[in-house]
């Protein structure tokens, strides 16, 4: 009897560390609190805090006369976003992001499909390397390289001249919006470079989602008389959609925020990121810069909300 009491109720451990360990064992919530406080503080103060400070700035305005910031709540700065030259910037950026996303999805899908279904063993490794390799080299080097490729006296022009296809390039460049005096000074150039730079972010999620599509579903579709187009339309595409949406979140948000590519390649017309940089760094107009920053946040919020409804996050 005495032996049982001895072993079932252990005496408290002695020493500070032993007592501390007992304390945490009895009060697991305190331990959890202690563990979570530093990261939550980081997230709350550094991340959300700075975001909040930024949002707050956008409700102030700049005094037109002195150029000083007027610390009174106003929506005047947001109204400025709607004046034509600023609204153009927003429209231009969103349109570019949407087109880049769409085109990336169309190009990435067959590549991802091949990688998920047909590439085996060594080829799969080579494929992964091929997709990831561009991400290893500097972003700036790639953009400058593209500037040389797309320049008026660049590689692409030379290549097209050899093929006697210069008329095609010239016809394209004479089009009103997408054209310009050369590919590297046109929206077409900006578009091409955006697609190149963000492509891996589209391929990898699509590939991941395609790998989860069971092969027998596709066989079943064929057995039931579905032709390849129907199989794609009713089986493969809906099942891969979450991956496409996940990839599109990357390409869309990265294009929305980028300010380096449109500065080096393109016609000098500003994108949102450049406008933020110019208003904040050059003009000292922090309220307007902050209001510009809110635009992609709102757009991405809506986008993520729609993506969630489509089940893009189910596989996370």
């Amino acid at each position, binding site marked *: 009897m005495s032996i049982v009491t001895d072993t079932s109720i252990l005496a408290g451990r002695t020493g500070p560390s032993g007592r501390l360990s007992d304390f945490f064992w009895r009060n697991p919530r305190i331990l959890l609190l202690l563990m979570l406080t530093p990261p939550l503080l980081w997230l709350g103060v550094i991340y959300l805090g700075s975001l909040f400070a930024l949002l707050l700035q956008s409700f102030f305005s700049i005094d037109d006369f*002195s150029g000083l910031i007027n610390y009174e709540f106003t929506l005047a700065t947001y109204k400025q976003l709607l004046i034509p030259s*600023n609204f153009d910037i927003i429209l231009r950026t969103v349109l570019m992001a949407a087109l880049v996303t769409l085109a990336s999805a169309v190009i990435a899908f067959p590549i991802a499909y091949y990688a998920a279904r047909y590439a085996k063993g060594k080829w799969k490794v080579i494929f992964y390397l091929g997709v990831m390799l561009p991400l290893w080299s500097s972003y700036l080097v790639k953009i400058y390289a593209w*500037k*040389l490729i797309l320049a*008026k006296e660049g590689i692409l022009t030379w290549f097209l001249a050899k093929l006697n296809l210069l008329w095609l390039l010239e016809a394209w460049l004479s089009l009103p919006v997408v054209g310009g*005096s050369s590919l590297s000074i046109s929206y077409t150039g900006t578009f091409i470079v955006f697609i190149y730079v963000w492509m891996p972010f589209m391929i990898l999620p699509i590939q991941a989602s395609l790998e989860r599509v069971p092969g027998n579903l596709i066989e079943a579709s064929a057995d039931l008389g579905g032709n390849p187009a129907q199989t794609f339309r009713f089986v493969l595409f809906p099942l891969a959609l979450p991956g496409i949406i996940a990839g599109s979140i990357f390409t869309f948000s990265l294009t929305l925020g980028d300010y380096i590519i449109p500065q080096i390649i393109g016609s000098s*017309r500003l994108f949102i990121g450049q406008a933020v940089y110019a208003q904040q*760094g050059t003009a000292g107009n922090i309220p307007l810069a902050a209001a510009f920053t809110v635009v992609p946040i709102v757009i991405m919020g809506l986008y993520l909300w729609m993506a969630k409804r489509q089940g893009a996050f189910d596989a996370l």
Partner: protein
Amino acid sequence: MKRLLHSCTALTLSLAFTTAAIAQEPLKELGAGEGEVSIVAWAGYIERGETDKNYDWVTEFEKKTSCKVTVKTAATSDEMVALMNEGGFDLVTASGDASLRLVAGKRVQPINTDLIPSWKTVDERLQSAPWHTVNGVHYGTPYLWGPNVLMYNTEAFKGEAPKSWKVVFEEMTLPDGKSNKGRVQAYDGPIHIADAAQYLMAHKPELGIKSPYELNEDQYKAALDLLRVQRTLVGRYWHDAMIQIDDFKNEGVVASGSWPFQVNLMQAEKQPIASTFPEEGVTGWSDTTMLHAESQHPNCAYMWMEHSLSAKVQGDAAAWFGAVPSVPAACKGNALLTDEGCKANGFDNFDKIAFWRTPVSKCESQGECVPYHRWVSDYIGVIGGR
């Protein structure tokens, strides 16, 4: 909310600056060097022989003073202001459109010219220049100055220098028989509005523009209209000197406002490039080495300012950047600049240059002018095609 923001700012500032003395009085005497000095500078301003071993004015300074020099290059005046606001640097080579902003923002401190023996060798035209002297107090030592020249391709212009800035502002047929559309460039900084205003000063005297940096609403509107015409001619605006060089070489650009730096680099590569001072005059920059208000290494910084005014450094740096030295003695007997260098880069044209200033709303010539932040947003609109 304003109060909250203010107290947060005050708290951050007091935390950050408790160690730094409030240094609004200039230094009284020089002590020993602190072992290092950090400088925010334009690309090509502080060379240690890494690009070309003949152009090195850092190594000797480091040997002499044992102050290790670190350089942070900036591409625009606005970047310089941003970097100085961030802090952590000792010196900055600020242009006139940044220097007064730095003084007004109390980011730089007055300097004691008695501690800089070479001060008296500085060009008299620059000693009390309004872009670094406020109420008789000097906020730095002049470093280099130069014009924004019209750079052109000699093949497209058949060897004849364009006489007017018209080639970059209005559509016309160039001597090679083709239109200038898509073959000219302009600077993508809002300060370029001043170039348009200067062009209008000569061609539309009825507007009554006295200074290209002081524009009332009507004059400003006329300048923007001119720039809208320019937008139809310009494929891409230039921002980075190296990208402009690339555009002249690979994109078929034949004329643009530019710096002697690009001209000299391309001429060194035997490209068919030359530059000229058009009849309307030019805008220009004049840079000042300024000392940060919370500099951690003021002694080394003063030593650098003294070093930067020596005739040898001035001549070498001017030769490298295609600028004009602030010390006239540098114009003679410098092997790199040569005796013709000063004249070629614009030494005698000082009076024809409208030096960069920050446009402010309270201006001298007409009471009320369009301030700089509107230049910024409107220039964005012009580039965007509005």
